């Protein structure tokens, strides 16, 4: 069944007719031509499709486009993190630290990192946090590694991803 929907992506509104089975990921990639989020598993297991949905990181392969539209949610992809040619600090840090090789998981890693920094800023604990009640999360390497473990990197750039994020977390 097709449905007419509006998606707000990277600050722009898109009106489209979508199959109700279409995931947000497929709508972005196949319908809107935004190939920044990648399809790695289509099962929410790899994180390559991570986008921000109203500021929270989600795997866009597990969200239906019609649901996002009816929520009038704001979608931000890695493409939308950059302002023109000005890259987001996390994007710049990924380049400087060479925190990727093939680049396929990279937009998802970067969006996830931005979302994660927001979560930590709000005091969200992780499974490795010593103190669950504190408002001040110290993003040491262990915290970053734990919080970024929903994003697989088969080239295995983890040892560069953590310092790249760390640099932005503690400027």
């Amino acid at each position, binding site marked *: 069944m097709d449905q007419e929907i509006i998606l707000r992506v990277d600050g722009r509104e898109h009106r489209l007719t979508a*199959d109700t*089975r*279409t995931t947000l990921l*497929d709508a972005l*990639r*196949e319908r809107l*031509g935004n*190939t*920044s*989020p*990648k*399809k*790695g*598993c*289509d*099962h929410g*297991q*790899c994180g*390559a499709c991570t986008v921000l949905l109203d500021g929270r990181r989600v795997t866009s392969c597990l969200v239906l486009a019609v649901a996002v539209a009816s929520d009038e949610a704001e979608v931000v*992809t*890695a*493409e939308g*993190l*950059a302002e023109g040619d000005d*890259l987001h600090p996390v*994007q*710049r840090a*990924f*380049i*400087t630290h*060479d925190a*990727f*090789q*093939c*680049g*396929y*998981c*990279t*937009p998802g890693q*970067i969006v996830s990192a931005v979302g994660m920094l927001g979560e930590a800023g709000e005091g969200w604990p992780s499974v*490795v946090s010593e103190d669950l009640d504190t408002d001040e999360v110290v993003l040491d390497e262990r915290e*970053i*590694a*734990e919080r*970024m*473990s929903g*994003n*697989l*990197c*088969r*080239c*295995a*750039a*983890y*040892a*560069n*991803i*953590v310092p790249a994020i760390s640099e932005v977390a503690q400027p």
Partner: protein
Amino acid sequence: MTLTNDRVGAVGVPLDRIDGPRKVRGAATYAYEWPLRDPAYLYPLQSSVAVGRITGVDATAALAEPGVLAVLTHLNAPRLAWSGDPEVAVLQSDEVAFRGQFVGAVIADTLETARYAAGLVRMEYDERPPDVRLDTDRDDLHRPRHAAIFGSMEGDLQDGSPADSAVGDLDAELESAAVTLDVTYRTPIHHHNPMEPHTAVAVWNGDDATLYCSSQGVHLTRQLLAGAFGIEAERLQLVSPHVGGAFGSKVYPASYATLALMGAQLAPGRPVKFALTRQQMFAVVGYRPASVQRVRLGADREGRLTAIGHDVVQQTARVKEYAEQTVGATRAMYAAPNRRTTTRVAALDLPVPTIMRGPGESTGMFAIESAMDELASAVGIDPIELRVRNEPRTHPESGLPFSTRELVACLREGARRFGWDGRDPAVRTRREAGWLTGTGVAASIYPSPRLPGSSATIRLDAGGGYTVEIGAADIGTGTWTALTQIAAEALEVTVDDVTLRIGQTSLPGASSAGFSSGINCWGTTIYEAAGRLRARLESEFGGTVPAEGIEASADMPDNPYVSQYAMYSFGAQFAEVRVREDTGEVRVPRLLGVFDVGRVINPKTACSQLIGGMTQGLSMALHEESVVDPRFGHVVNNDFAAYHVASNADVGSVEAHWLEERDPYINPMGSKGLGEVCIVGTAAAIANAVHHATGIRVRDLPITLDKLLS
């Protein structure tokens, strides 16, 4: 006389990745992502039985679904002009050789419709029970003939080497040696699992086709596919500038590319998009075959090896032989006057294995380097010292001198950086808050071969800009950046003066990215073309660029030293592990490697390759295992939830270092391969550290918790 120059230029500079800004915003275009008008979508049908024959197809319901354009099966698939490779020859008969084999496809207006309709196609089979058991007691093990069937190289294994080798008298020496070891190691099936699923997007216009394909080598792929479809190679264009990881699984993108091209023939003029799902990747894009490896060592009381035996039994597929050089590293590693290696394979009703990062070396060196650690314990010698004592002066089998071999320096430098000295060899003696700790070491080796088929063209325009063209691949390896640096050095200009073009068949031919040979082959070829361009500029134009510009082309030149020297990269890897005493959980807080890879083109991207390989080695040591259901012949754990690869939290400190050197005989850059040596030995270093921590010797990968709870 050497090949290597002493130029100092763009090579050796830790340049940021040229494709970095595009990749971090997701703007680098992978195969599925080309903006093509009005695409159709293909969803494959896979056999639900392991062995048998298709006896019936009912596509009525699928064809009745709105938006379905065609259902493709062996009944209506185009007959291929060449079907010599069973992986290329999809849908050419009713035979099923393994579960998950492509038996058809649905092509539809949308992905959702194609996928839904695929579920409506009914297939009936005449099924036979599969035979998927790998063991050394099978009576049908045979000496492999991989190359004889499918390769152009002579030899039995996929690198062209013989299945067996012998020097001296192994059996007699093992009878009389002062110290002997006879142990068997096992490695499971591993799947590459690149993050980008294998993709082929095909469009036909008359007799011409374009294929956007994730490929490690567009020219080799084109050669296979153009032959299969019976068209001149020039009529098929492949485009693959960015590849989302490969690790060997995209060298022969045969079955899915064939299917996409067939599907597109049913929708002329319309692009047909096909990307595998993660689950499908476990059946049709290859994997590292399981192995059973018996290692026998004989030594004197000081640990000097007098005998090395390595007998490998591995599995292959009944439908197509694949056999890798699991014994290859053993032939080159240590001195011993008596030695023998053998390779036998069991042909099973499983999908076709293929090369996977360090094919043969990664599994073979898990066994050999674990055995060396066991020998070190048996004779009471430090494992580094044991390796130093057995360092050969020349290649132990061929007798050729090594072009460069700095294994001992890697071990010494690694020991210094890791803090190895003073290590207490006693096992299961260090405890910290419920964790047993230990350290381990292993050596790494990987050959630096040359593959044929590379050519390059360089154009110089009147404005001083150079365009370098070669059909090379960047599978995450940093080719875009490294070849730009090599071209700049060879042309004696800066990287800003060079525009590189790679990754498509419209460019001069190039060997595939594999065997750690890319930079060696492509760089050598670019160097040659650069030399010709500069000579031409000087001799014909007196050094002044004409208004129309000039160009020069070259094929990869011969290297006379290839037959005179044994060329290998080496390394030493160190691991620190913690094993939780009550649960058996293994953590690896530290990995450190020191490598002998010749001259490093780009320290930044090279380091990423090295730590990436080491981390994949950690993943192989602790996480990865594809479990085959013996009843149905399929991989049970066919997704990322169940096939574990190392995640961020599984990894601690990973450090890679290298010796500053130039190999004088290999190529003008002085660089050896580095993409694979880094995964070789890692699993053994971790297994050895686990033994140091726990006293438990795990000889079958992966090292899971159950194996550490006795």
